[in-house]
């Protein structure tokens, strides 16, 4: 088994491998360019990198050789608006400003990929990323008009979770716009997420599933009806595939954060990167820690062995905490450009680098 750690950062896609018990950077691609998402397709080994070039828009690249060479593909794009204004154009028509997440389809659809964007578009490809279509069944939901920006100006789709035993069952998370489920591929969508609660809203709206600021959904691979939700307002857990959630009230040192990683084999175990809400967004008491529950959210362990004692400003973006296939090894990247690898389920952490750009995603890839 060979394990690589990919890091999508503000200044490139970085690849780390283990050498003499240390994790070292062995390759960097797209140096200087913001990488917003990276995907490894387990069905064929392909790598995909989503770039946010700022001036020149979002871009998508694919590598079939582990990153040795890259090919630019057409990035997901909204269809041209038919609502022409006085000048012949429609200045308000949507255009993808961020490729926020990428996901591989199921084993029965070997050429299918999914992408979630800002503004809140779900896109599908049936040719391994050569071309993309907007999933209009979701885009045309009347309730989408009430999705709102959460941090960004426009709402976005950051979580696309395919049920590992039924690729037609899809859960998506929207910031802000709640949890949406499809049971038939993508023909029909249901606003789910009963039980999510947004304390900051007026009381009569606090439990409205449409108003929920989901920060990330993380599904247990072997008990896929268990989905963890890190939400703006706290931590929630579903045991029915996202239809409903129970609020976890014992999280410590705080229930606020962006990231969550679900243990692939134990549905009672998940990791979080707690911080202070709302705009403050630094570690609680500026002590950077990871929290872990091993009993479905009843109690939490605070893990800090190997993490800094010094006052910290590190924040973990939603895709920057990941656990590997074994559930034993974790990776943790921060906005301050610090990267750690955790052993024994996070019991101890080892610094990999203090000198990286802000990190948007970490990804474990294991190959035979």
């Amino acid at each position: 088994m060979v394990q690589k750690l990919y890091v999508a950062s503000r200044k490139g896609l970085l690849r780390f491998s283990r050498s003499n018990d240390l994790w070292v950077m062995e390759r960097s691609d797209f140096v200087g360019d913001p990488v917003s998402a990276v995907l490894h397709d387990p069905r064929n080994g392909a790598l995909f990198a989503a770039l946010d070039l700022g001036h020149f828009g979002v871009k998508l690249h694919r590598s079939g050789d582990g990153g040795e060479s890259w090919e630019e593909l057409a990035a997901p794009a909204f269809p041209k608006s038919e609502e022409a204004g006085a000048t012949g154009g429609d200045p308000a028509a949507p255009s993808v400003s961020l490729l926020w997440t990428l996901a591989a389809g199921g084993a029965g659809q070997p050429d299918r990929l999914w992408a979630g964007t800002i503004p809140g578009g779900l896109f599908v490809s049936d040719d391994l990323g050569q071309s993309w279509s907007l999933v209009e069944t979701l885009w045309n939901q009347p309730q989408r008009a009430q999705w709102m920006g959460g941090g960004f100006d426009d709402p976005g789709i950051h979580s696309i979770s395919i049920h590992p035993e039924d690729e037609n069952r899809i859960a998506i998370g929207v910031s802000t716009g709640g949890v949406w489920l499809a049971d038939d591929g993508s023909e029909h969508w249901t606003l789910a997420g009963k039980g999510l609660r947004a304390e900051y809203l007026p009381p009569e709206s606090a439990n409205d599933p449409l108003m929920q600021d989901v920060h990330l959904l993380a599904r247990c691979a072997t008990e896929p009806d268990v989905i963890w939700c890190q939400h703006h307002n706290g931590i929630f857990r579903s045991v029915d595939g996202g239809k409903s959630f129970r609020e976890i009230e014992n999280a410590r040192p705080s229930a606020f954060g962006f990231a969550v990683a679900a243990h692939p084999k134990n549905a009672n175990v998940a990791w979080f990167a707690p911080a202070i809400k709302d705009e403050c967004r630094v570690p609680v008491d500026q002590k950077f820690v990871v929290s872990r529950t091993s009993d479905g959210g009843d109690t939490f362990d605070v893990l800090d062995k190997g993490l800094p004692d010094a006052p910290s400003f590190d924040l973990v973006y939603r895709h920057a905490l990941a656990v590997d296939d074994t559930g034993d090894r974790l990776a943790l990247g921060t906005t301050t450009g610090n990267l750690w690898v955790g052993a024994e389920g996070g019991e101890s952490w080892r610094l990999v680098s203090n000198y990286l750009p802000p990190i948007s995603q970490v990804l474990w890839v294991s190959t035979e």
Partner: protein
Amino acid sequence: MVQVSFTSNLERHLSCPLVEAAGDTVEAVLDHVFEDNPRLRSYLLDDQGHLRKHVNIFINGKMLADRTCLSDGLGPDDKVFVIQALSGG
């Protein structure tokens, strides 16, 4: 033919040497440019075909007026410069 040149910053991502193209509007000229360089389109224009927010175009030193439809008129001796705006950096 209209002469079209591009910011060297684009060269990090794709080749776009100075070219000459026919057309009586910026849109028409760029469409001809994109026929030979299709990847370039998404670097300059957004999903709706509008000029990207942080890209700018000058015609003989004067800024483009219509960023939405690129309808500014061009004559055969005009020079078009595509630049990266300082905003968005």
